C-alpha cells in the first residue's frame, strides 16, 4: 500500500511538472513586448525619486497622456534622447514620468543638472525589478499610455525625431 502511494505521488509530481511546462509554453513571454500595445497596465508601484512616497496607477490616471521613460545616467543613448524629452515636456497634454533605472542617486541628479530635467515626476528603480513589469529589457525605453492606462506605443531605444512627431500628433488630438 505504502509503495503504491509513493509510486502514485511520483507520477503525479511528474504530471504536475510537465503540466506547468505545457502551460508555460503557451504563456506570453515577458520579453516579447510586441503584444504590450493595447494592453492595460493594472498595477503601478514605483518609489518616488526624492519624496518618501509611492507613485501609483491613481497618480497616472490624472494625466491625459503619460510617457514613462526609463533611463540612467550611465546610459549613453539616454543622453541622445534627452533634448527630445525636454521638448516633449512642453506639450500640455503630456506628463513625463521618468524611471531612473539601476542608477546611483547622485549620478542621476548630476545628469539632470547638466542636461536639464524634463520630468514632471521622477521615480527610481534601483534594482531594476519594477521595470521588468513593464517589459523593459534595456534602456532607454519609453511607454506612452493614456488616461485609462492603456499602452499606446512602446519605444525601444532612444526616442527619435519621428517618435517625437508621433507622440506630438497623438497628444494634440
Amino acid at each position, binding site marked *: 500500500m505504502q509503495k503504491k502511494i509513493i509510486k502514485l505521488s511520483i507520477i503525479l509530481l511528474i504530471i504536475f511538472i510537465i503540466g506547468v511546462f505545457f502551460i508555460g509554453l503557451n504563456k506570453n*513571454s515577458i520579453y516579447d513586448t510586441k503584444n504590450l500595445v493595447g494592453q492595460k497596465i493594472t498595477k503601478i508601484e514605483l518609489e518616488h525619486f526624492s519624496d518618501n512616497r509611492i507613485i501609483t496607477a491613481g497618480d497616472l490616471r490624472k494625466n491625459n497622456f503619460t510617457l514613462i521613460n526609463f533611463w540612467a545616467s550611465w546610459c549613453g543613448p539616454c543622453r541622445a534622447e534627452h533634448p527630445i524629452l525636454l521638448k516633449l515636456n512642453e506639450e500640455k497634454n503630456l506628463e513625463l514620468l521618468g524611471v531612473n533605472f539601476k542608477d546611483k542617486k547622485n549620478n542621476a541628479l548630476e545628469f539632470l543638472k547638466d542636461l536639464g530635467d524634463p520630468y514632471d515626476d521622477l521615480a527610481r528603480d534601483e534594482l531594476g525589478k519594477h521595470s521588468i513589469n513593464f517589459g523593459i529589457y534595456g534602456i532607454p525605453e519609453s511607454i506612452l499610455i493614456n488616461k485609462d492606462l492603456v499602452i499606446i506605443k512602446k519605444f525601444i531605444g532612444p526616442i527619435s525625431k519621428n517618435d517625437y512627431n508621433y507622440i506630438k500628433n497623438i497628444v494634440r488630438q
Partner: protein
Amino acid sequence: MLSDIGNTLLIINILLGISIIYFSFQNLKSNEILISEKIYHICLFQSTFIIICFLTLITAFIVSDFSIINVYQNSHSLKPFFYKVSGTWGNHEGSLLLWVIILTIFSFLFLLYNKHHQKNYRIYSLIIQNILILGFLFFLLFNSNPFSKVLPIPKEGLGLNPILQDPALAIHPPLLYIGFVGSSIYFSAAIGSLLTNYSGKLFARSIKNWVLISWSFQTLGILAGSVWAYYELGWGGFWFWDPVENASLLPWFAMSALLHSLIVLEKRNLLYFWVIILCLLTFILSVTGTFLVRSGILNSVHTFANDPSRGIYILIFLSLMIFASVLLFFNKFKETNYNLNSNSKETFILINNWFMIFYLITVLLGTVYPIFTEVLTDHKVSVGPPFYNTVIIPIVILFLLFMSVGPQTQWIKNKFYNINLLLKILMGSILINFSIIYLFKGYSLLSNFIVISAVFLVISSLIDLYKSFNKLKKDSPRILSHLAFGFLILFIGLNYNFSLEKDFNLKLGEKKSFENYSIEFKDIRLQDFENYKAVIGEFKINNFKKNLDQSLYPEIRIYENPSTITYEASIRSGILKDYYITMSNIDRSDYYNIKFQKKPFMIWIWISVIFISLGGFLRLYQNAKKNY
C-alpha cells in the same frame, strides 16, 4: 538540389531506423545466439547516410546555397570559410542534425563494442536507441527541417550572428553534444538492462566507457561555452548561472554521480537500481535542458532559438520518455538491502552521489522556478547568482572534505588508511590559508573555509599521486581529476576574493587612477576587417607598485551581415591574472564607458577544468589498454 538530397537522406534514415527495429524484433524471436550480420550492416548504413546528410548541409553552407532557408538565415557568401562550416551547427536546425548524428553513431559503436555481452540486452538497447533516433528524425523532418527551401531564391544570406563567429563557439556544440546526446546510449542500455533483467555487474562493465566518454566531453563542452561567454559576451567571469549554462550543468551532475556509483556496481554488484535511475535521469535531463533552451519557455541572455511548436514537440517526446521509463522502472524495481560499513568506500561514493543530487536539485529548482511562479502565480521572478551562491557554496566545503577522505577508504572494510595523515594535511591546509591572508589580504570566514577545504583536497590528492608513482596505488586518472577539482575550487575562491572591478567614463587623453592602478585612454582608431569594421581603443594600464605597463585594445565592432554592433573585450591573460577591458560609446558625447577588471587566476580555472576532463580520458585509455 542539395535540399532534395538532404531530405532524401533524412527519409532513408527513417526507413533504416524502422528496419533496424523490425529486424531486431525478428532476431529476438529467433533462436540465434548472435545478432545477425544484417543488423550490423543496416546500422553501418544508417551511420554512413546520416554523416553524408550532414556533409550535404555543410556543403550547402560552403557553397552558400541560399535556396535553403537555413543557409539563407545563417550564412553569407563573404563569411570566412571556417565560420561557414561552423555555421552549420550554429543554429537550431543544424544542431539538431548533429544530435541525430551522435545518437546514430553511438548506437552503432555501442553495438560494435559490446560483442561479448548478452544478445537480448544489446538488441533491446539498440531498439530503444533507434526509437530515440526516429523521434528526433521526425522532429527534424517535420518541424525543424534544416533543408527547407525558400522561394524566390535570395541573392545573399543574412549572415551568422557575429557573436557566434568565434572559434570557441565553433567547437562548443559538438563537444557538448557528444556529452549529453552521448548519454542517450546508456539511457537505452538501462532500459535494455531492465527489460532483460541483465546482471548489474555486466551492465556496469558495458556502459562505463560510454559514461566516461560523455562525461569527459560534457566537461570540455561546458568549458568551451564558458570561455566563450568570458571573452565574447563581455560578462567578465567564468560562470553566470544563466539558464542555458545551467541546462548543460544539470546532466553533468547526474553523469558525475553515475560515474562514481558505477564503480560500486562493477566492483560490488550493489546499487543496481540507483545506477539505472542515474542513467535514465542523465538523458532525461539532457532533453529537458534542450527543451528549456529551445522552446523559449525560459528567457536567457542567449536563448538563441525559440518557437513554441518546437517546445511542444520536445515536451511530448520528453513526457513519453519519462513515463515509459518510470513505469518500466516501477515494474522491475525490487527492494534490496544494502549493508554498508559506514567508513567503507561504498558509503563514501554514496555520499558523493547525494552531494551531486543536492547540487542537481538546487540548480534545477533555480532554473525552473521562474516558470513555476509565472504559471502558478503570474508573478515574474528571476533567480540569480545570490541564490546559487548561498545554497551551493557552504555545501562545497563539506563536499571537498568528503572528496579528500573518500579515496583513502577501502572497499567493504570499516577502516581508513591513515587518520593521522589526514589530520596533518588539514593542519597544513589551514596554515596555507592563513599565509595567503597574511601575505595578501583577508577575506570572509566562508572564503577561509573554501580555501582550506580546497587546499586539503589538493594536498591529499598530491600525496596520492606520489604514492601512485611509487606503485603503491594505481589510480592516476581519479587522482588527476580530483586534484584538478581541488585546484578549480581553490582558484575560483581566490579569483572571487582578489578580483577588482571598476566602471567609469573616460574620453580620449584622460586618465583614471584608483588603488594601485591608472588607466589612460591613449588612442582611438577605425579599422576595416574582412567582415566587419572596428573602432579600436588603446588603453594603457599602469600599476605603480609593480611597475607594470600594458596596453589593451577593446573594440566596438560593426558587422554588416547582419548589421550588428558587438563589444569585444580586450583581455590580457597572464599566468597570475587577467586584465580585462570593455568599452562602449556614449552617444553624442566624447566619453566612452569603460569597464576594467582584474581577474586573478582565470587561466588556471580553465586549465583545471581541462585536467578534470583529462582524468576521464586517461581512465578511458587505461580501460581500453586493459581490454587488448
